[in-house]
């Protein structure tokens, strides 16, 4: 036997090291509480991996984690949030090839098209990182009032936001809905694309190593309708982005459930992912806090604030 053929045999005999995809909740990577998984296939129907099939209890745990993380994330300076988001983009850059492969498999794209999607997603992440300390100037205001007061409106994060990621665009679409939510200081419970959840689950590995505090983003995979229902009805979720609710009946039911505690709802709408995203998704999950502060002279000298 020649040495070449024995190397070939050894290579052929090497056991595959398959990745166990897991949920991302509170900075940890648990399996689904239910123990369930479901098969994920590529665009041609070939098996890719088993993804965890999250249950309503996983959704509940994710909301608890997101609520716990909210105070710290919302209270962090906008500058720090920008730094951390930019760090995420740096980490994504280092794993470009992995994401390009996963996107190519998930969406049936050519290598170059998938790579272009990943590049666009990373650029978009950087773009939103830049917005963290600018949104207050754009969405806030100094309001003229009929009295000796400063009147300032300042945008504040709304709280825990449930995000149903787009079903078709597994990575660029995902980044387009997730980044604006956390950029402004909200925390997110993300329900990944049902058919193509792997890029989202891999993204959580990036988030876990990018100084993003645990619980700010929680990633669930599984049946969108099953996970979205308890999230929409959850009394401790403040807003829900229905982008991934493609079925009109589902979207309507979720909106009705969300009305129970007056959640902010972003209805599903066609999105041109290639276009400039604008600030629409940043401002969708903001509250406006308005502060009155007395102005006027500080005594006889006539000097003012």
């Amino acid at each position, binding site marked *: 036997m020649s040495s070449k053929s024995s190397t070939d045999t050894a290579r052929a005999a090497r056991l595959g090291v398959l990745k166990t995809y897991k949920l991302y909740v509170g900075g940890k990577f648990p399996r689904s509480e239910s123990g369930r998984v479901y098969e994920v296939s590529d665009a041609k129907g070939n098996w890719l991996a088993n993804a965890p099939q999250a249950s309503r209890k996983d959704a509940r745990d994710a909301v608890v984690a997101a*609520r716990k993380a909210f105070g710290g994330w919302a209270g962090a300076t906008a500058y720090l949030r920008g730094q951390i988001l930019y760090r995420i983009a740096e980490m994504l850059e280092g794993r470009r090839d992995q994401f390009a492969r996963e996107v190519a498999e998930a969406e049936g794209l050519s290598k170059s098209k998938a790579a272009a999607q990943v590049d666009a997603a990373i650029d978009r992440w950087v773009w939103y990182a830049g917005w963290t300390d600018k949104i207050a100037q754009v969405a806030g205001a100094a309001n003229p009032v009929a009295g000796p007061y400063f009147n300032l409106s300042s945008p504040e994060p709304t709280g825990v936001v449930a995000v149903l990621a787009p079903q078709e665009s597994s990575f660029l679409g995902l980044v387009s809905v997730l980044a604006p939510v956390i950029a402004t200081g909200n925390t997110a419970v993300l329900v990944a694309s049902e058919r193509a959840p792997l890029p989202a689950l891999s993204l959580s590995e990036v988030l876990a190593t990018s100084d993003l505090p645990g619980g700010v983003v929680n990633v669930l995979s599984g049946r969108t309708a099953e996970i979205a229902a308890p999230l929409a009805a959850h*009394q401790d979720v403040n807003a829900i982005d229905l982008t991934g609710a493609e079925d009109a009946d589902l979207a309507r039911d979720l909106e009705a459930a969300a009305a129970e505690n007056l959640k902010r709802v972003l209805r599903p709408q066609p999105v041109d992912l290639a276009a400039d995203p604008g600030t629409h998704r940043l401002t969708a999950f903001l509250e406006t806090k308005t502060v009155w502060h007395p102005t006027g002279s500080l005594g006889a000298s006539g000097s003012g604030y």
Partner: protein
Amino acid sequence: MPNTPPADAPASPASTDPAASFTDATASNHALRAFLHGLPGVDAVGLEARAAALGTRSIKTSAKAYAIDLAISMIDLTTLEGADTPGKVGSLGAKAVHPDPTDRETPRTAAVCVYPDMVATAKEAVAGSGVKVASVATAFPAGRAALGVKLADVRDAVDAGADEVDMVIDRGAFLAGNYLKVYEEIRAVKEASGDARLKVIFETGELSTYDNIRRASWLGMIAGADFIKTSTGKVGVNATPANTLLMLQAVRDFRERTGVQVGVKPAGGIRTSKDAVKFLVLVNETAGEDWLDNRWFRFGASSLLNDLLMQRQKLATGRYSGPDYVTVD
């Protein structure tokens, strides 16, 4: 039923002094030591495995609803902070009487638990509701004071109207093997407590071994404790399923031997409904149904109540609730 406040009449054949059956054992420190060290040793691995196995029971739907209401009715709603104000104790009392203002069907808690100087305030806050007022005493939580000071502390609480007294044992004396001192101190506090029910806190986290917890349990029961309680909530290790299981075995065996029923109160570290239900399973499987009542089993807790209320709301509405829908204490 979970809705009933703690009954005043003893529900067991137990008004006799249990110490009468143990006069030999309590004759001297030597005899007491011989008795306590003659108790069977604890199989630590078996105990923890048993506690963990019982924790895996699945309690769902109507059984869960029953367990949640029962657990609420067993809570000693506790505030033991240096920063306690009359206002805080007052609102704690209000919460004990109406844990969930949006649902008047919610059972009351068993008691509120405060420091002696807050007893009068707490009494006023729960007046007429059937909710008891428990007071910690005997130089809680360290228990490092002269006997006279401890007894004065107890009398203070009882005079202010405390229905229950939570005393701490002298762990230093216990660990040094001076069991008779601990015994006599509990006897003295029991006498000073008068009609108030006496809970004896062992601070299991400081007793080092399971054998010591078993010895302390028997020592406390012989001395006349109405309740044996795991911990103060002020140290690292508080109530665990294993140490509570051990104490439940002790009260079961004690009743078998003397006919006297003693209650158990795990305290500290029980924060979720899931944990509370696990403890109720332990009670049912170890001591038995007789203890599934707030006269014989209590939870020393504060944040547990909010989690039970959120679970209760979830069962009622089908929607997960959140901390915005319960009071902040």
